[in-house]
């Protein structure tokens, strides 16, 4: 053994302990980083879920209702218009007074009426309009409780707090307790959350309007962006001459993919709304903006899908005399389609979750009605989440979280589909 080699062994041996300690430290840092990442994922999901799952139930109060003909239809015409505008709230109020006959003071009465949602009359109206024969009869109806009562029942309001700091007065507490003892308070599945439009009253608010808005916007976005993106991708990948112009387009697309989304909102506001006069707040203008936003994503994915089709396929088709376009449409496109669809789904998922640019083009408006078409004012699910998150009522917190859960469910489904699609059709040449 040479002298140098011997000293090498000694020197290496001397430093080994320290080096392995540093190796372990580094490795632990890596584990820590991944652990932190996963921790954030779980905290986020746990937080949203624990806040939101209660929103799928809504507190209802059972009220004995007498469909008093003198209130609903004093003239006895049974005319639908009259019935539609009758004072159904009076019936509920009467029912509540019957339960608590000792409440006579005006202020106390008003507080009593606030046990139920201001929109509780809608349920009765619907029943009468469906079946006017009910007038003059009596029945027990479950009506929505007010949001404060809902929060109380769900345990979000601390009963031990001093009354002055509490959203619910001692008197109301006692009434609710009495109702509970008589089994007249119940948490039932919150169908309204999925069938109602937005409302200022948390217990009335639902995501149907936002869902329909998202649906129209997304469908239009798909309709616009898919052909545009696929056309662009085929042209750039297969037909475009390699020159400065196509280089410019390419650099442009890559840059557009990284432009902040809010800039697209400004563009939509200035160009689509103010210049072309596309109506504000509509799925149409939303879709136009989202199309421009998602185009780069889909184009880039489509191009790489086209790239992955081996040239031999093209040569084979051209060799039997197919025209370049026939080669594309008959042979290359079907093979590249799964990749393109994957990119499209990912782009659509992005569009579904996008909020900022839609605020710019007026989709932030408070809209109660469920949109019926692409030119009706609408909002979309993420914007609805934003609006609710801004509302001060405690009951909106759980609804916001619930809406987020719905949104995430859609997004996860879409992304899973994309992953499965990629797995299913992944081809190695």
């Amino acid at each position, binding site marked *: 053994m040479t002298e140098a080699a011997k000293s090498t062994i000694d020197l290496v041996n001397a430093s080994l302990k320290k080096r392995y300690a540093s190796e372990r430290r580094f*490795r632990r840092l890596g584990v820590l980083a991944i652990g932190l*990442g996963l921790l954030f994922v779980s905290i986020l999901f746990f937080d949203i879920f624990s806040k939101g799952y209660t929103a799928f139930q809504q507190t209802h109060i059972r009220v004995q209702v007498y469909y008093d003909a003198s209130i609903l239809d004093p003239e006895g015409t049974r005319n639908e218009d009259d019935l539609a505008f009758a004072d159904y709230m009076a019936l509920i109020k009467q029912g509540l007074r019957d339960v608590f006959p000792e409440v006579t003071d005006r202020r106390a009465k008003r507080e009593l009426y606030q046990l139920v949602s201001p929109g509780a009359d809608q349920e009765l109206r619907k029943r009468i309009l469906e079946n006017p024969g009910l007038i003059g009869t009596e029945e027990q109806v479950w009506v929505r409780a007010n949001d404060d009562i809902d929060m109380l029942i769900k345990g979000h309001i601390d009963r031990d707090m001093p009354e002055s700091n509490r959203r619910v007065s001692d008197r109301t507490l006692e009434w609710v307790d009495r109702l509970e003892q008589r089994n007249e308070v119940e948490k039932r599945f919150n169908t309204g959350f999925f069938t109602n439009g937005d409302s200022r009253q948390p217990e009335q608010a639902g995501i149907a309007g936002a869902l329909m808005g998202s649906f129209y916007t997304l469908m239009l976005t798909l309709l616009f962006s898919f052909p545009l993106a696929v056309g662009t991708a085929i042209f750039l990948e297969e037909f475009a001459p390699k020159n400065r112009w196509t280089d*410019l387009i390419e650099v442009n697309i890559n*840059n557009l993919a*990284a432009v902040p989304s809010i*800039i697209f909102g400004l563009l939509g506001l200035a160009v689509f709304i103010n210049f072309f006069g596309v109506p504000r707040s509509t799925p149409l203008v939303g879709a136009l903006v989202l199309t421009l936003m998602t185009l780069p994503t889909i184009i880039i994915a489509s191009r790489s899908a086209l790239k992955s089709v081996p040239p031999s396929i093209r040569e084979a088709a051209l060799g039997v005399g197919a025209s370049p376009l026939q080669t594309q449409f008959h042979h290359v496109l079907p093979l590249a389609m799964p990749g393109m669809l994957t990119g499209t789904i990912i782009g659509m998922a992005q569009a579904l979750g996008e909020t*900022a640019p839609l605020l710019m083009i007026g989709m932030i408006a408070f809209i109660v009605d469920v949109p019926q078409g692409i030119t009706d004012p609408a909002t979309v699910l993420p914007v609805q989440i934003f609006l609710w998150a801004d509302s001060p009522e405690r009951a909106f917190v759980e609804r916001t979280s619930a809406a987020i859960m719905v949104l995430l469910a859609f997004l996860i489904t879409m992304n899973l589909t994309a992953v499965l699609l990629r797995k299913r059709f992944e081809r190695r040449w």
Partner: protein
Amino acid sequence: MQSSLLIILVLGMVAFGYLFGRRRSIAVSRNRGGITRLHSLPIYYGFYTALWVGLPALAIVMMAVFFEDSIITRLVIAGLPDQLRELHPDQLGLVMNDIRNMATGNIVAGELTAELQLASEHYVRLQAYADRVTWILVACISVLSLVFVRSRISPELRARNAVEKTVIVTMMVFSTIAILTTLGVIFSVFYESMLFFQQVPLSEFLFSTKWSPQIALRADQVGASGSFGSIPLFAGTLLVSAIAMLVAVPIGLMSAIYLAEYASPRFRAFTKPLLEILAGIPTVVYGFFAALTMAPFIRNLGERLGMDVASESALAAGLVMGVMIIPFVSSLSDDVINAVPQSLREGSAALGATRSETIKRVVFPAALPGIVGGVLLAMSRAIGETMIVVMAAGLSANLTANPLESVTTVTVQIVTLLTGDQEFDSVKTLAAFALGLSLFVVTLILNIIALRTVRKYREQYD
């Protein structure tokens, strides 16, 4: 405007054109020895006819959609009595809105006057007239093209070439949309910004440290119509983004390194998608989390430690934004690290380097340009991120480097300025465009540098 019916008419004509063209080509080939004598397959004659029928009709519909309303509006305004016509353009717009609403039978905001009633009837009449004209034009053009194409269809007609040419030209036009978008952004945002800079000097926007777009209460306050110094906004943006990068870069980079260099394939296949969930969560969800969970948590923590923390602290927004960017940094770094050739790792290992030594001294320096590019892209994303800061950062423009205080950002101000009830050409609205322009320029520069660095890096190892 019954545009949907009109579109159905056009589509019907197109379908008819297709069938007609196909049958016609078969018919003309019959006495010439069958369809093999045709230059192209019959379906191409069908497409050819359909294009001839559809494109002109579509052009007319487009024109109608774009110009009908403005022409009618102009005509209606011309027919208005003088005292209404001489109103300020903004008020005139409101009047027109009323007329339109009345015409469509909606509830009208202003009071009902006889003039308005007349005008709305005028409007309805004009619109019905315009609709009729459009319908007739579409029908005429379609029929004319049909007759024209009928005379052209012959076995010699190179229908496939014509159709393919059209398709390729269409795709070429599609591919310019990206350019048009960029131009649209530049021109629209630039134009509005120029209007802004006519009212507020550029020097104030760039160098003043006071941002208060509210109209001043007293005339002698700084800048009677608010002041528009963007420095505090950019400082706030930078502070929040810097906090985000402090979270995202170490965590994202270290997890990418661990996944690429240490993790077993099974661990990687399991963990990577889980981390990427973070990238798929909409920003509004992060915003909600930041505002309702992170901010109170930090404030309570600060209180317990005896520190004064604003309820909309930059720290809360920055931390959550950092979490959002983690998967962005980690997947970009992962790509870059995997592009470092295996031979370098082997060369280092063969000299007796431990894994971490190889990573720190060989892999990381080799991947550095790519990682820097990725970090720049992440930075540009942090700067342009909107929802988290809108929901969790403040509105007041504080010039501070203290992460526990509340700051505002460029994107927050854009949203605030544009979501209020402002007229479109008020200084406040225009200010939003000026901010948008600076945001665009900053992120564009970052992106270009980043994409270049990454591209150069890739070329090195390809």
